[in-house]
């Protein structure tokens, strides 16, 4: 469904992605792990067309994103839902307006209908009583859950998660992980997550890939990743400072 073909990207002479090859199959959850500054966020921004590669391709069901005209690219983007690292809620709107924003923009649904849909998805993420609160009145975990409700409110085919548990306490992280897993089971959405939180990665992944210094150095199921001989992967998943990986 998503194919990254020898993706390369640099900024101001610094090469961030050095030839990434990766496939995400329909219905699976692929988690990309990697340290800070390894290029995970840059990689994810390529998948949804927020950034474009210097060379290589990103293909969604065979369509090269870089070759799409603006209206086609917009249509393709609308097949995605994205959960941002810091939720990226619109701070001038209340919670239900955030969750229903895309529906208000792209459908002819009336306000009452959108409000009901927003209520439904907020209940799914365990926040039935925050409809009229402003984002500034929510805790970090609640903001992430509202961000998740906003991402799934348009019934996307593909969900992208940018470090969904970063900055949260372990208990709230577990709530988010369970939520992501249960949404996958309920909705069967193809998902791509980037994270450096190994607890989260093991919890939600069907398959994992490790990005290191701009390249994918290992892919496999969570069990294969746990049992790998690759010293970089072993060091990363054990969280040790001893080994070949230099701190970012």
């Amino acid at each position, binding site marked *: 469904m998503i194919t990254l073909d020898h993706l390369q990207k640099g900024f101001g002479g610094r090469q961030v992605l050095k030839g990434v090859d990766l496939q995400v199959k329909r219905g699976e959850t692929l988690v990309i792990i990697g340290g800070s500054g390894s290029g995970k966020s840059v990689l994810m921004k390529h998948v949804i067309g927020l950034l474009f590669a210097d060379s290589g391709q990103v293909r969604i069901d065979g369509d090269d994103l870089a070759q799409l005209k603006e209206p086609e690219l*917009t*249509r393709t983007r*609308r097949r995605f839902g994205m959960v*941002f690292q810091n939720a990226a*809620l*619109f*701070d001038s709107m209340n919670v239900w307006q955030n969750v229903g924003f895309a529906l208000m923009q792209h459908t002819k649904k009336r306000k009452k209908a959108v409000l009901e849909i927003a209520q439904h998805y907020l209940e799914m993420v365990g926040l039935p009583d925050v409809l009229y609160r402003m984002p500034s009145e929510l805790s970090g975990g609640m903001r992430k859950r509202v961000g998740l409700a906003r991402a799934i409110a*348009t019934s996307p085919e593909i969900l992208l998660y940018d470090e969904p548990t970063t900055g949260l306490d372990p208990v709230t992280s577990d709530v988010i992980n369970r939520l992501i897993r249960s949404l996958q089971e309920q909705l069967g959405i193809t998902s791509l997550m980037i994270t450096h939180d190994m607890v989260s990665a093991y919890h939600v992944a069907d398959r994992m890939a490790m990005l290191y210094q701009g390249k994918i150095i290992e892919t496999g199921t969570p069990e294969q990743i746990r049992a790998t001989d690759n010293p970089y992967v072993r060091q990363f998943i054990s969280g040790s400072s001893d080994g070949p990986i230099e701190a970012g």
Partner: protein
Amino acid sequence: MWGVIVATVDAPAQVSWALRLPYWVGSVVLGVLREVGRLSIYLYQSIRLGVVPPYRIRDIFRQMEVLGVNTMPVVLITALFTGMVLALQSHTGFSRFSAESLVGTVVALSVVRELGPVLTGLITAGRAGASIAAELGTMKVTEQIDALVTMGVSPVKYLMVPRIIAGVVMLPILTVFADVVGIAGGYLVGVEMLDANPTVYISRTFDFLEVADVVGGLIKAAVFGGLIALVSAAQGFNTRGGAEGVGRATTGAVVLSSMAVLISNYFLTMAMAS
């Protein structure tokens, strides 16, 4: 202004003294060209996306309030005192060759043709320009603008176009108020302080004022309004690097949009004169 523009050009690690001047000149030229190019693209996109529905009337009215209504008090105070100072200064000058009766004419022409639109433009650049850049800059660094894109909503259409339309509509309206208050300020000083004959003052004010003077001033104001919104929104969209970046974008918006007002004012005046 140069600081804002040169800051966009990467400095090399080492530049010898002999190359400093050509490097600086080259950096400024590149910076100016880059900024003009970026603004041209935004302007083209704004026009292309602005003419197709949905028109987001509610957003436009909200921006008209920010750009126009909230800026009104500062514009009125500035116009009042500028008209008053103008009357005082021109009276001092004209009294040297016994032409005090022309004070009203000079105040009216100066305010309507030049000071009304330019001062309104500069005040709007300072107040509304900073506000636009800070708001959009914060949206940029907190990924709200990325979120819009991922939801298939064009930030130019959703955020920039309503602000440009509000600027084009509200600046002429603000200028009309500035003109009236500026002329009234001149009248206050001329008649109440300097003992000019009220009837003569009023007739001299309007005898030489033509419709073209007023219309020319309002056209200038409309262009300034569009430019301020365009430049400030572009600065917001190109914000990088957290709170410090938002501060830089805000300063850049005020400096660049003020420069845009002053520079475009010259060319508009030249075009109207010819």
